[in-house]
C-alpha cells in the first residue's frame, strides 16, 4: 500500500542572464531561483491498482515518481510503502527489492550484450532462486514474445523490442509495485496493444500495483481504472475514469456533412441544451448531453431537416476532458 502525504519538492537553481555580461555576472554573484516542482500532493494507492498519472511536461510527474522510488528526498511530506520510506537509507533496502521501474526513454539493460545476459545479472542482483527465475523468464517470454530477440544485443533491438525487454527486466523480480514512465512512447499501434495486454495480464496474475505515467490517453483508457492528474506541482484530480466522465457529463458529438445549412434558431427551439457549431472542415458539430437527449431524437431531426452526405457520432475523448481540466485548472 502506497501512501503519499503532503508531498513537496522545491528546487533551487542558479539563475544566469543571457549574453556575455550575464555570463560574467554569474561568475561572481550567482542568483538562485526556487522552483516548486511538487507542491502538497497527497494520494493513496492500494495493492493491485493500475493508476494513470497524467500531467503536462514539467508538471511534476517524474519528480513524484523519483520521490516514490527513493531517488529524490522530499523537501517536506512523505511517501510510505507499507509504512517504510523509500528515500530513507536504511528502509529503502527492502523496498528496492520489490520495485520495478521502466523508463520509456532510456534502457536499463547493458547496451552491448544480449538481453539474456542482462536478465542473468538481474537474477543475481535480486537473488532470485534459479527455479523461480526460470519459471518467471518463461512466463515473461511468453507474455511479451521475447524469444525472437532474447539473444540479440540490446543495441540492435527496435524500440518495441527494447521496451518489451525493459519491461521483462523490471518484472523479473516479481515486484510488488511497477512504475512505468512513458512506456509506450514512440511505439506503433500493434506493439502498444501487445504491451498493454501484457501489462494487464501481469497485473491480473500477480496483483502487481502499477503506476503509469504517460501522455497517451488510449493507454490510460485501456489500462487504468483510476487516474491522477497533476499540473504545475498540484493535484487536480484523483478518481476513476467513470467518475470523470460523469462529472463532465456524458457528452456526445454528432458530426454531419451537408450542402444545406441548418437553421440554428429552429434547432434551439427543439433542443435547447444542444450546442451546434460549424467546423473548419465544413462539418456541423452537434454536442449534446446523452443523459438529457436521446440519440435517436437528434438523428431523426437532422435527417429530416438536411440532406446528409456523411455522419459520425463520437463520445468525448479523454484527452479533451483532460484539456478542459488543464484549461480551467480545476474540477
Amino acid at each position, binding site marked *: 500500500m502506497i501512501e503519499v502525504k503532503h508531498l513537496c519538492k522545491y528546487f533551487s537553481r542558479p539563475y544566469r542572464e543571457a549574453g*556575455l555580461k550575464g*555570463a*560574467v555576472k*554569474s*561568475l561572481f554573484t*550567482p542568483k538562485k531561483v526556487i522552483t516548486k516542482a511538487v507542491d502538497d500532493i497527497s494520494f493513496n494507492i492500494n495493492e493491485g491498482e493500475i493508476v494513470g498519472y497524467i500531467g503536462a511536461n514539467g508538471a511534476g510527474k517524474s519528480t513524484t515518481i523519483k520521490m516514490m522510488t527513493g531517488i529524490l528526498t522530499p523537501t517536506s511530506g512523505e511517501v510510505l510503502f507499507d509504512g517504510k520510506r523509500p528515500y530513507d537509507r536504511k528502509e529503502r533496502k527492502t523496498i528496492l527489492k520489490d520495485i520495478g521501474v521502466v523508463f520509456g526513454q532510456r534502457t536499463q539493460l547493458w547496451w552491448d550484450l544480449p538481453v539474456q545476459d542482462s536478465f542473468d545479472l538481474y537474477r543475481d542482483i535480486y537473488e532470485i532462486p534459479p527455479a523461480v527465475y526460470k519459471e518467471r523468464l518463461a512466463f515473461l517470454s511468453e507474455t511479451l514474445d521475447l524469444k525472437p530477440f532474447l539473444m540479440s544485443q540490446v543495441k540492435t533491438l527496435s524500440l518495441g523490442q527494447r521496451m518489451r525487454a525493459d519491461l521483462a527486466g523490471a518484472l523479473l523480480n516479481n515486484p510488488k509495485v511497477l512504475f512505468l514512465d512513458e512506456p509506450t512512447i514512440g511505439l506503433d499501434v500493434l506493439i502498444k496493444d501487445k504491451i498493454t495486454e501484457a501489462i494487464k495480464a501481469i497485473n491480473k496474475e500477480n496483483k502487481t500495483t502499477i503506476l503509469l505515467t504517460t501522455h497517451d490517453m488510449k493507454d490510460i483508457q485501456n489500462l487504468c481504472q483510476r487516474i491522477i492528474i497533476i499540473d504545475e506541482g498540484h493535484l487536480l484530480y484523483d478518481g476513476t475514469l467513470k467518475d470523470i466522465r460523469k462529472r463532465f457529463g456524458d457528452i456526445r458529438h454528432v458530426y454531419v456533412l451537408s450542402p444545406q445549412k441548418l437553421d440554428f434558431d429552429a434547432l434551439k427551439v427543439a433542443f435547447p441544451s444542444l450546442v451546434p457549431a460549424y467546423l473548419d472542415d465544413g462539418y456541423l458539430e452537434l454536442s449534446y448531453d446523452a443523459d438529457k437527449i436521446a440519440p435517436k431524437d437528434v438523428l431523426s431531426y437532422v435527417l429530416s431537416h438536411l440532406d446528409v452526405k456523411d455522419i459520425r457520432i463520437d463520445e468525448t475523448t479523454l484527452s479533451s476532458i483532460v484539456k478542459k481540466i488543464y484549461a480551467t485548472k480545476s474540477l
Partner: protein
Amino acid sequence: MLRNPFKKYKGFVRGEFLNLFAFRTEIIGWVAQDIVTLLIMVFLWLSIYKENANNPINGFTYPEMIAYLVTASLSSQWINNGSTFRSVNDDITEGQISSWLIRPVSYRGKNFACTLGDCLGNFVLFFFPLATIALLIFTFGLGLPFPAWYNILFYLLSGFLAIVIIDSLDFLIAQLGFLTNSLFGIFIIKSAIFAFLSGSTIPYSFFPEWAQKVMPYLPFAGLSSTPVSILLGRFAVTDSLISIGLSSAWAVGLYLFSVYANHRMIKHVVAVGG
C-alpha cells in the same frame, strides 16, 4: 567581401567562448591543478640542479629551465585546447556528421572556428592573467630578461600557427573514429606523444643527439618548442624566422591535407549514410 564568409563562423567562435564561463568550479579546478603542477616541477628541477652544483645543464640554467617549462605549460593552455578532436569524435559516434552537411558552413571550417573560439577564450581567461604574473615573477624574481617586442609578436604568430597545426592533426586523427570506438585511448596516445615530441615536457637539448637533429623539422616543434624558445629569446632573429617559416609550411600543408580529408570523409558519409 572577405569579411562576409567569416561572419557565419563568428557565431561559433563566440559560442565556445561563452561556454567557458559556464562552470565556475571547472575554472578553479584547472587553475589549482596548474599551480600544484608548477610547484612540484619547481622542486624536481631544483633537486636536479642541486645534483649538478647549480651549473647549467644542456644549455639551461635553473631559472631558464623553470621559465621554459612554465611558458610551455602556459602556452599549451591556449594553443592546445581546441575542441575539434572531441567534437569530431562526438559527431562520428553519434552519426551527426550528416546533419552538419545540411548547414551552410564547411564542416572543417566550423571546427576550426570553434577551436579558435576556445583558444581565444583560454587566452583571455587563463593565459593572459597567468602569463602576466609569470612574467613579473621571471623578470623581477628570477632576473630573466623581458622578452623583446618582436619576440612577443613572433610568439603570437608562432602560437597561431601551432593552433592551425594541432587543429589539423586533431581533425585528421579524429577520422580514426570511423574505425574504432576507443577514441579516448587514441586521445591519450596522441596527447602524450605530441606533448613529448613538441618539447613541452622537456627541452630538445635534453634529447639524444640524433633526435635533436630531426626534431626541428617535424611539425611538433612548432607546437611548443618554437614559440616558447622564441618568447624566451633563445633564438636569434634569423633562427626565429626560419622556425616560423617551417611552422608555416607545416600549418599550410596540414590544413590543406585536413580539408582534403574532410572532403573524402564527406563523400564517405554521403555514400554510407552518417
